[in-house]
């Protein structure tokens, strides 16, 4: 199946701007960043998730995807990545749980997957209490529409450090990241 939806308007500079947003999000967990999105999107994909895929996923990164055929065709054309069920480097699948994904090994923890998680809304006030590298004292992040039991599962995910999974939360054109080093408390 072909796609009629475009990628970044400016593939080089839009990818750079989006990467800096992801880098900022990953180095200051809980700080919400806006990304540059493609002008038009296949149904079933948020602008933020589209931007993260275009910025980081390519032929070298197996992707586990469950977002419908339109999205699959779009990703296949623009990212050219292999689609897999197990051992994915990037995951965009609402059915995926942290503990079942590739977590890397003690010697090569960087092989742990990155989960792209679509949520309803992100807000820098109230909600979770975040602590860890990248945070001076404490950051607050209110995530609307996170999977039920996410915080408890995150605690198990964090306990495996340095092996683990990193998460990029996407809501509309905004992202926040949860690196594996992060501790989350529900308030």
């Amino acid at each position: 199946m072909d796609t009629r939806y475009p990628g970044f308007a400016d593939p080089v500079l839009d990818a750079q701007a989006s990467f800096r947003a992801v880098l900022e999000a990953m180095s200051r967990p809980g700080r919400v960043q806006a990304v540059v999105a493609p002008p038009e999107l296949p149904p079933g994909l948020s602008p933020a998730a589209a931007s993260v895929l275009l910025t980081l996923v390519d032929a070298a990164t197996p992707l586990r995807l469950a977002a419908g055929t339109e999205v699959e065709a779009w990703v296949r054309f623009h990212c050219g990545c292999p689609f897999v069920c197990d051992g994915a480097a990037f995951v965009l699948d609402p059915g995926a749980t942290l503990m079942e994904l590739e977590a890397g090994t003690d010697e090569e923890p960087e092989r742990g997957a990155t989960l792209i998680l679509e949520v309803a809304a992100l807000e820098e006030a109230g909600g979770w209490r975040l602590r860890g590298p990248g945070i001076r004292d404490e950051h607050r992040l209110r995530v609307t529409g996170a999977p039920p039991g996410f915080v408890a599962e995150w605690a198990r995910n964090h306990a495996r450090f340095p092996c683990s999974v990193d998460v990029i939360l996407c809501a509309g054109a905004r992202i926040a990241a949860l690196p594996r080093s992060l501790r989350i408390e529900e308030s």
Partner: protein
Amino acid sequence: MTSAAAKPSPPSGGRGLGEGGAQGAYAHDTGYNFAYLDESTKRMIRRAILKGVAIPGHQVPFGSREMPLPYGWGTGGIQVTASILGPSDVLKVIDQGADDTTNAVSIRAFFRRVAGVATTERTAEATVIQTRHRIPERQLTEGQILVYQVPMPEPLFRLEARVAETKRMHALADYGLMHVKLYEDIARHGHIATSYNYPVMVDGRYLMSPSPIPAFDNPKMDRMPALQLFGAGREKRIYAVPPYTAVRSLDFEDHPFRPIRAPHACALCGSRESYLDEVITDDRGGKIFVCSDTDYCTERQATKAAAE
């Protein structure tokens, strides 16, 4: 584009060569992709940087590319800088604290040509600072990224030559060997005789080489507001220290870590706080001590001149 919007826009004007201030954005040489590297290389390096940030202090392998300068001249740092740099960034490059040495001047000229970015010699104006072997004296801020050029990323390599073995030691957080080395220093010299490349623990988990910065600079890494990225081109490793992350220099309770500095004042600006270089002035043994950080020194001299 919050991240870009938060940054100061490149200052206009001030293009005169040799001036301390920012040189405005140049047109980028369209014979090259923006910032020299191709997009798939940038994606690969960007993924390595993100994993490095998520696992503070862990060395992430990456496919280091041939760069148009030899290994040992900052190929790792340049690849990291090229992968993060955008048109609205202002780049500063220092070599042992100085903005005006060959390496720093050539790398600035390289990025002006291939990325058309504005460059500066002023620490306060820069959004990205690439450094060889120093941390600027001025406290860095949240809007800045410090990129280190790293010759040897493995802190244990003089103690254990086998890479497979050092990987295992990092996996097990087994750093006894380094403590024994520091202990032997004390037994032999009465103090820890490591004055640069002094090993640090990052967030209490990974032993990390701070690159050959003087031990004097180690305390600046601890809970620094700026993001710190490290690139080793020949050894093909990238690692990172996120902002506000605990970076502790290894020591013993009875032999605490002490940053060392020459006990003099700078001959040019009079600073008693900054890290000093010894400069030989004649062939009769004459010498002076001056700040290694040229921007810090120039700024202090200007303030002093203005006050008089």
